[in-house]
Structure formats: C-alpha cells, structure tokens
C-alpha cells in the first residue's frame, strides 16, 4: 500500500514538474492570426498637412517564433481597406493606388527571426505589395498572453514600421499623399 502511494505521488510530482518547467509557452508554438482581434493600420500624410489613418479588415497568417522552423506569415486582403469613406476606398482600390483587382493581397513572409530580448524579436522578411517584393526588417514585440473565452491560449504581438510606397510602384499623387507610410500591425494569435 505504501509502495503504491509512493508511486502515485512520484507520478504526480513528475507531471507537475513537466507542466511547470517543461511545457512550452504559448508563443513558442504554432499560432494562427485571429482576424477579429487583429488590426493593420496605416498612416499617410495628406497634402503635407495632416495624417490620415486607414485600416485593413481581412487579415490572416501564422506565427511560430521559437519552434524548430520559426516563421511569420501574414496575408492581408487588399479589398478590405477601410478608411471610413466609401468613395475614398474605391479610389484607393483603383489602379491609382493598390489596384485591388490585380493585386488582391499584401503579404509578409519572414526569412530570419532572431530573439533580441525577452518578448522581442527582430524579423527579416519580404513584403509583397502591389506586385513588388522587397526585403524589410521589423521589430516584433510580444504584448501579452492569456486565454480567450474558449480557453485557448492566445498571445499578442505588435510592430510598426515605415515604407515608401513609391518603392512598391505606387507613385500616383505623390505631391498630395506622402511617399512614406507608417504601418502599425497588432496581431492576436491563438494556438493552432
């Protein structure tokens, strides 16, 4: 009897140790981007005067930052651009800017991920926008982790970076809308 109890307690202890020490944190496992709770914002200067903000509503992707094959992949549907003005959105989707019919998505795929400090990563990758692929470098920061209503582990990440739209062949109205665009990407990711 004593021997049986000792065996049971050893098993429980081993299990607890594995859970506390050995279990990988949520962000170290493959994660899927939750489109509802993720945001891609852009900011552009209008007539060299004020900043106009817009967003993309259709986001998807996967992240695996500390696994054996670390990767960050994000896709954005160009057609989901949202600026709060339907006519402006129509213009932005036209060949003047995104040409959403021809270039239906914006994509980022990492080529190298390096952990710089706790919760911070340096991510090199390729941004595909308007049919042009260019290497970019972003600083990705883990903003928190927890559980959603379904009990699934979730983790948040954020990054912001600037691009020149002319580098991606979007050269129309450069005198009216700035070349430099700030992008703010906030992702809420759930374990797959």
């Amino acid at each position, binding site marked *: 009897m004593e021997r049986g109890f000792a065996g049971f307690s050893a098993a429980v202890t081993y299990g607890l140790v594995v859970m506390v020490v050995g279990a990988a944190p949520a962000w170290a496992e493959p994660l899927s981007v939750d489109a509802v709770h993720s945001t891609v914002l852009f900011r552009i200067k209008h007539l060299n005067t004020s900043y106009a903000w817009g967003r993309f509503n259709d986001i998807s992707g996967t992240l695996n930052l500390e696994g054996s094959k670390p990767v960050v992949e994000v896709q954005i549907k160009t057609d989901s651009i949202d600026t709060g003005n339907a006519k402006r959105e129509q213009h932005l989707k036209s060949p*003047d800017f995104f040409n959403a019919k021809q270039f239906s998505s914006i994509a980022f795929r990492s080529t190298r991920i390096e952990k710089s400090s706790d919760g911070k990563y340096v991510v090199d990758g390729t941004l595909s926008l308007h049919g*042009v692929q260019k290497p970019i470098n972003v600083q990705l920061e883990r903003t928190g982790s927890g559980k959603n209503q379904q009990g699934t582990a979730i983790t948040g990440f954020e990054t912001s970076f600037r691009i020149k739209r002319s580098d991606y062949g979007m*050269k129309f109205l450069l005198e009216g809308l700035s070349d430099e665009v700030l992008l703010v990407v906030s992702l809420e990711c759930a374990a797959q």
Partner: protein
Amino acid sequence: MFTVNDLWAGVARPLVLTAATVVIAAHITRRRFTARDSRSWAGPLAVGIGFAGGYWSLFGWGGFPPLDASEWLLFLTLPLVILGTLDSLLHVGLPGTLLTTVVAAPSAMLLLSWPLVKSHDTFQPDALLLTVVASALTVGWIVAMDALAARVSAARLSAILLVAAAPASVALGLSGSQRLAQIGGALAATQAGAMVAHLGLGHAGVGRGSMLVSGVLYAGLLLCGHVYAQLTLVNAVLLFAAPAVAWAAQIPGHRFDGRKRWVTQLAAVAAVAGWAMLRAILEFNVEATNY
C-alpha cells in the same frame, strides 16, 4: 486631382505633339506623296507620339513589363503605330485592316485583362468571356470606324473621337481612377491635336489607319476602367459605342449637306457619350460623401 502641371503634361503636350507630327509629316512628304496621302499617312504615328508623350509626361515610362496591367496602354502604342502606319501607307483595304485588327485588338485586350483572366493560377471564365466579347466588339468597332474614315475627313473623324474621349475621361475620373481619367484626357488631346492640324492643312486628309491606334487605346482604356476601377458596364458600353453613332448621319437617304452632317454626327456622338458621363456624375453624387 488635376493640377496645372497635369493639364500641361496630359492635355497640352499630347495636343501639340500630335498636331506637330501631322503638320511636319505632311510638309516632309508633300512632294513625294499626293496631297491626300501626305496629310494622311502620319495619322497613326501622330496619335501614337502624342499619346506616348502625354503618358510619359504624366507618369514616366515605368518599368517593363509593367506592374499595373493598365500600363500596357503605353507599351501597346508602338506596335499599334507600326501596324496603323503600314495600313495607312500601303492602303491595305478591308482584308488587310481586318487582319491587322483581328491580331492587334484581341492581343491588346488579353494583355490588359490578363491578371484577371489568369488569377490565382487558374483561368477565370467570367474575365475570359469579357475579354473575348471586348475583343470582338473592338474588332467590329475599328472596322466600322475605318469604313467611316474613308467617307469623312480626318479632321471630322478626330472631332468624333474627341467628343467621345473627353466625356470618357470625365466618367473614368468619377468612377474611381484619376489616373485612367488622365490617360483618357491624353487620348482626347491627341484627337484635338489631329483635328486642329487637319483643319489647318485642309480637308484632304483621311484618318484611315489611325483608327487602329485610337480604337484599341480607347477600348482598352474603357476595359481597364471597367475591370480595375468602377466604370459601370453600361457606361463603358455607351462610351465605347458613342463614336460609332456617327454612322447615323451616313445612312443612305439622309440628305445632310457637309455642315449639317458635321453637326449631326458630332451631336449624336456627344449625346451618347454625354449620357454616359451624366450617369457617372449622378452615380458619383449618390455615392460621394465628402471625398
């Protein structure tokens, strides 16, 4: 947004380039060709130079192959000018015109709509059907307008295209793409330049051959407006059909004299193109908030 610079680059420059090309070509070849031929052969070349010059002034050359499918409009100009000039110089007649048109128009339409025809690595039947229909209509349009060109002066033919292309430019601008509107403005300006030059040279010139250049560029522009911007199908068809309405004044039995025929043709074309422009204005006003 149209600035003074845009108007200079996209309207004045193509107008001047086209007019100058027609006049210089006529002057250079006046002893070698007949009066009519010397004033006519450079029509396609003039439209091509004017259009390419205006496009370059507005947007630069871009890269090759172009990123945006609509940028093919610039690169299509060179082969169209070569084919059109051959047509104009060699007097190839209906079979020759038909052959060059059957090759040029579908090739151009397919290039312009290719990203939609072959999207996500599969052929899209709707886009393919639209391209086939647009190609067939463009072939018919060019043959019909080429036949009209044999019956009216080059100046009048340019005026007919001008009163269709100018409203088309406005409609495109109101349908979501100022860039396509500016390209339409440049095309309209080439017709204005050709009209001014031919009026100055006298009525002997004919516009055969230039229909291939103007027709494919015009149809291609409207196709781009419909598939890549928000030009409605009805407005695109109205604008496309407008120049062909000029045939109305050529119907046998209508006894219009020269001046009355000018006015009738231009009014008919302007009415149809203007209708499309008015529709675009009304649609814009319904949708527009403070943009």
